[in-house]
């Protein structure tokens, strides 16, 4: 039986003809970095506007252009793929058991040389 994911609109069969199940996981969300109204922001591809400014790689150089004036050989830069929001992202896999973590940390181990020491970053 085919299903459509309401998070990503992907379509998949849950049961395969070979008798196995398929566990759908949403792909990351694609966004392009644009300058709009003077500010840089990330927008979904469906929301790109011809007047948006994007950074592109042109003849090996990073440059900026509006989408309307982009050339076929330009490579749009700074796209990002981010996880979907928790209420949207669907992962049909069975949750694995939580890892066993000791509540009390082990004794500090002896290192070869303390040097100048260290501090939390």
């Amino acid at each position, binding site marked *: 039986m085919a299903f459509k994911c309401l998070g*990503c609109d*992907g379509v998949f069969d849950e049961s395969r003809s070979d008798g196995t*199940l398929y566990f759908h*996981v*949403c792909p990351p969300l694609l966004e392009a970095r644009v300058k709009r109204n003077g500010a840089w922001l990330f927008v979904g591809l469906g929301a790109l506007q011809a007047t948006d400014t994007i950074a592109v790689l042109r003849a090996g150089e990073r440059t900026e252009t509006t989408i309307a004036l982009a050339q076929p050989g330009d490579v749009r830069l700074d796209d990002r793929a981010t996880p979907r929001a928790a209420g949207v992202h669907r992962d049909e896999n069975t949750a*694995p058991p939580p890892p066993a973590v000791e509540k009390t940390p082990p004794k500090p181990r002896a290192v070869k040389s303390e040097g100048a020491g260290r501090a939390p970053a």
Partner: protein
Amino acid sequence: MLYDAKGSPVAPALVGGLGFYFTGEDWLRVTSWNSLASVRVVATGRFLTCAGDVVPLSRDGAANTDRTAATFSFRPGDGWLQDLSLIVTGAAPVRGQTFVRVDVVRGDSAGAAVLSTLIQGYVTATKRLAWPGSPIEDSLAGQGWMRSFTGTDPAANTEVSETVPTGARWRFLSAVLTLVTDATVANRSVRIFFDDGANVYCRGCAAGVQPASATQVYNIGDTGFNAVADAVTDPVPVPSGLRLLAGHRIRSSTANIQAGDNYSAIQMLVEEWLEPA
């Protein structure tokens, strides 16, 4: 019942071998991990009671289909296990799909203490595992299940992404996907990323670019060229034999992807082992 000088039970002579002694508190616990529908694991064997009778054993239990553990337990009684074998009914898994383990446990509750393991390995509907005889096998050893499957067909302007399911380990072999580009003038460049769920550890990139209003098939594998010129198939070379743990992903990342660009569902060939979580 026969006893030796110290009061311990003694197997009746001329009836059976020494076997594996069970007190009345010891249970046999069969645990299975499985990825195929309708699988039932059947345990059969012979048991020598302290009264000197050889009685047959036969129990079965359903396996889960999501690679999580399913168990059934039974108490053979007081005496000696002579032999035990496992087989699958209800479906026909191949090696790599149904992994089983038989433990001797004290008690039958969740906190039962495991005392010994008699059988561990992959079982099918025709290849049994047996005690004594079968080696204790790691689920990641040997050949896995050669699995060809179709992934999710993503919506337009969405990248392809497939995740190794919980309880599995993959060896990536090859994949094919198709990209149909919209009319927006720009050269798309298809890259394939392998990541651990967040961090990319391997990238492959198609040799050519794909213009607007075109359909191109991408062949992802360890071959980086087409031996014969092919206008519609473009190779994406990736290292051979990549091992992917549960939660790792293979996904596309397309330079210049546009709002109307549309990928097909990916068709993948992987070798899969069960890796109990």
